């Protein structure tokens, strides 16, 4: 089921029907993953796809996160630890046909980073401390030229006490 235009989306949302907006960017490889440009397929008609008048709300959130360094602040009274480590790119698993780090693998990269951060925190390793996902915001910007051998993580982490009730 599609929403015919952005103006009607609120009616769907108010009725409890979620709406999804998808974005696609087509890239053309010129010399390799180091030199790319945005392109458009020559055999597709985009004339019926309406242009949006304003940047999506996510664009603003992403820019603010880039400036603030996070999407939302750590819990109050929490001491924040900063850890850094490298992650090797697996060319058989992590790179797409264009030679770029595959975007869909980034959630796995984040999970790896969190597990490594957990292991490096003081007091970590308790068998009962096994966090489950509650909320995540993420944005990936430009991974062009990221063909390996590694990406680096800088992970900030904290825990809150007392526990929420």
């Amino acid at each position, binding site marked *: 089921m599609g929403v015919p235009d952005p103006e009607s989306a609120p009616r769907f949302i108010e009725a409890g029907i979620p709406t999804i907006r998808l974005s696609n960017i087509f890239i053309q490889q010129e010399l390799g993953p180091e030199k790319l440009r945005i392109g458009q397929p020559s055999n597709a008609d985009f004339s019926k796809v309406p242009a949006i008048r304003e940047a999506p709300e996510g664009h603003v959130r992403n820019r603010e*996160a*880039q400036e603030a*360094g996070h*999407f*939302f602040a*750590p*819990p109050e009274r*929490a*001491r924040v*630890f900063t850890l850094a480590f*490298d992650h090797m790119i697996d060319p058989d698993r992590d790179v797409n046909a264009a030679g770029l*780090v595959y975007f869909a693998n*980034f959630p796995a*990269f*984040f999970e790896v*980073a*969190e597990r490594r*951060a*957990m292991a490096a*925190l*003081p*007091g*970590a390793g*308790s068998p*009962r*401390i*096994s*966090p*489950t*996902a*509650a*909320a*995540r*915001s*993420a*944005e*990936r*910007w*430009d*991974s062009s*030229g*990221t063909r*390996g*051998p*590694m*990406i*680096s*993580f*800088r*992970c*900030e*982490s*904290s*825990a*809150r*006490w*007392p*526990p*929420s*009730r």
Partner: protein
Amino acid sequence: MADTPARPYGLLWFTIHCERGSDKVLIAITTAARVTPLATPADVERWRAFAASLGSA
């Protein structure tokens, strides 16, 4: 609700900056809040000790 964590629960906050290895250009940021359900008094005590070891108030 299915997405409401069991209470009480411990909260871990992560922000990860992902940089390109060759030139340290920032390519991604993620922030996550993760919960650990604390089902028993022992779980609560273990979490209290964990948070205390991190120096959190």
